[in-house]
């Protein structure tokens, strides 16, 4: 049986046990927009990154605190952490396969609930069904155990799920890493920082998606309407303003008016995270890169973070020279 072929590859360099496959699934489900994801194993946890066309990136970090045991025997860790980052085990796996596998758990309970994902845009799905359910097997402590393992370069990423009477072993083939550069976000050039309930953002995006728009303009300004989301498509346009910003937005630091446009479909790909998370930090830098950082409360206290970054559409009026100073002055003009 494939469970015991560790001998071929030597002892695993990574082993972790989680008592909640559902939790891992919920977090990873936030970045399911890509067919494959990059996995990086470190002493602190597992980092899963998915990206699309280099303009959108989603990162889920599974902290070792999410696991009941977490053993990571990295081959040769250099003394200074900074240099060793490149040596961390790094590979790609099929994200869709990984997600399906994690769902095998509890496949017997309420299988229908998960097949309805396609109609997730409807009103009913506004109910946050991925929140822990008091009567799920998980909550009742009946669920089994999920073990993750990785032996080293070229070996599969193993998942073993144990549920009453059944043991499921899954070996996900690993692919060469395709280390795309992270979308750069300039923290020191940050122009917008808004912390709000992720729920508000989710509601706004699902409201706007009804007209199937293709562009989303995000405008933040220091005065009313503080934050506005405007969607434009073939059928027309719609916009949503957070006019009572002072009450709705927890943190709001916007020095001057900031407007950027993004592909609507991309922002919408983050809606699973919006649904699941409790809070979101919306940040924008001078170049228009949008960072959405979601804080997800996990069962049993603690929080996990899901990060998204988006590259904006090039603004038509600065296609000629595109220098940052000009963008800045544009804003000045608009505000005057």
């Amino acid at each position: 049986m494939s469970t015991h072929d560790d001998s071929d590859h030597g002892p695993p360099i990574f082993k972790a046990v989680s008592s909640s496959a559902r939790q891992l699934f919920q977090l990873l489900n936030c970045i399911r927009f890509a067919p494959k994801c990059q996995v990086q194993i470190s002493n602190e946890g597992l980092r899963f990154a998915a990206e699309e066309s280099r303009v959108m990136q989603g990162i889920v970090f599974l902290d070792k605190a999410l696991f009941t045991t977490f053993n990571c025997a990295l081959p040769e860790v250099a003394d200074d952490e900074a240099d060793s980052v490149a040596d961390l085990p790094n590979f790609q796996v099929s994200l869709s396969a990984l997600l399906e596998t994690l769902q095998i758990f509890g496949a017997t309970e309420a299988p229908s609930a998960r097949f309805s994902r396609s109609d997730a845009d409807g009103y009913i799905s506004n109910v946050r069904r991925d929140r822990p359910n008091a009567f799920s097997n998980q909550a009742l402590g009946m669920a089994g155990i999920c073990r993750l393992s990785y032996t080293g370069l070229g070996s599969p990423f193993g998942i073993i799920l144990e549920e009453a009477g059944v043991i499921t072993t899954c070996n996900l083939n690993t692919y060469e890493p395709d280390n795309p550069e992270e979308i750069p976000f300039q923290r020191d050039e940050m122009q917008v920082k808004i912390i709000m309930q992720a729920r508000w953002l989710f509601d706004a995006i699902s409201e706007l998606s009804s007209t199937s728009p293709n562009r989303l303009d995000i405008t933040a300004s220091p005065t009313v309407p503080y934050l506005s989301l405007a969607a434009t498509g073939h059928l027309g346009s719609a916009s949503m303003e957070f006019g009572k910003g002072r009450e709705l937005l927890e943190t709001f630091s916007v020095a001057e008016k900031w407007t950027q446009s993004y592909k609507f479909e991309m922002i919408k790909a983050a809606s699973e995270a919006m649904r699941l998370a409790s809070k979101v930090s919306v940040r924008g830098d001078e170049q228009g890169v949008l960072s959405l950082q979601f804080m997800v409360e996990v069962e049993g206290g603690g929080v996990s973070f899901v990060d998204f970054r988006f590259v904006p559409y090039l603004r038509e009026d600065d296609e000629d020279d595109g220098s940052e100073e000009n963008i800045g002055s544009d804003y000045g003009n608009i505000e005057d």
Partner: protein
Amino acid sequence: MRFKTSIRNIQTFSTSLSTLGKVAWVRLDDDSVRFTIIPETGTQVWASLSIESIFEDYTIQSAAPNNTINLELPLPPLHRALKSAINATSASIRLTKKDGVPVLSLTIITNTVSSGNSAGGFLNPANADPFGDNVFREESLDANMGREREAIVTQDIPIRVLTADSVEGIHEPRVREPDAHIVLPSLIQLKAISDRFTKLAMATSYGGARGGASSTASVPKLELAANMHGSLKLSISTDSLNISSVWSGLNNPELDPRQLDGENPENHPSAKLKAAGQDAWSTVRIDGRDWGKVLSVGRLGGRVIACFADEHALILYVYLSNFNDGVDDSVLTYYISSFSV
């Protein structure tokens, strides 16, 4: 030629004839009812049900010995007809002729009182305002009586009556003695996992999360294996992963000596597989989607024994013994042939 009966287990009747094929051959006689579904590809079903398990007040008469009647029955219309009978108080079936066409006429009697607001003799449902003036609208006693209406629905299913000669050549498939036989775990669980494997293979082998390919030609093949030490293994492998689920602690039932034709049980293939130890498996490859349909029979909750003829065929015996004590003559047999690698 006469055939008339009431149906007593509508649920069983329709589930056991689940969606495996379009046409069934039904053989009715004095002792049993046999449904046979032989689709062009996929699983053959040979279901032999005792009369008492699905019918009552059964009358049959024909010129053939044992009052045998052979019918060719289209399943989708039957299925639809039975659906409307689910909540019926009674349903009966009769072989008759309408405009020269032989039909099975299904008469369904439904009492509408059960679906109405039986407790609502007081509250007028149209008036949603609980503080309105009409909360306790007065009604005459007669109106209440009138609620108990009977609806009679008749559904005619055109059929063909087959001659004895034409069905003579149809035989149950002959399969060699199985290498392994095992009692399957809960079919509902097995189906849930099987369906997920099938979905997994379809989603990943087409290189995208949006998978769901519609081509029927390349439905993934599940590998199902059993040993003679209580384990069942379900596995599938695709470009991006291989996955298997193993059940252990299942029961390998003892062979019935009567079925061995006096042969020494030691020489039976299953004894050899047992002697070969826990790592000796008997394997078949089956169509994931077809298998999912077969497993729908799990809703009946019977005991299921799977017999594995290595690389050859899988036979499922579904025993429906939970209707009546003492009556255990109902068995559904599914013949599934194995695909080659």
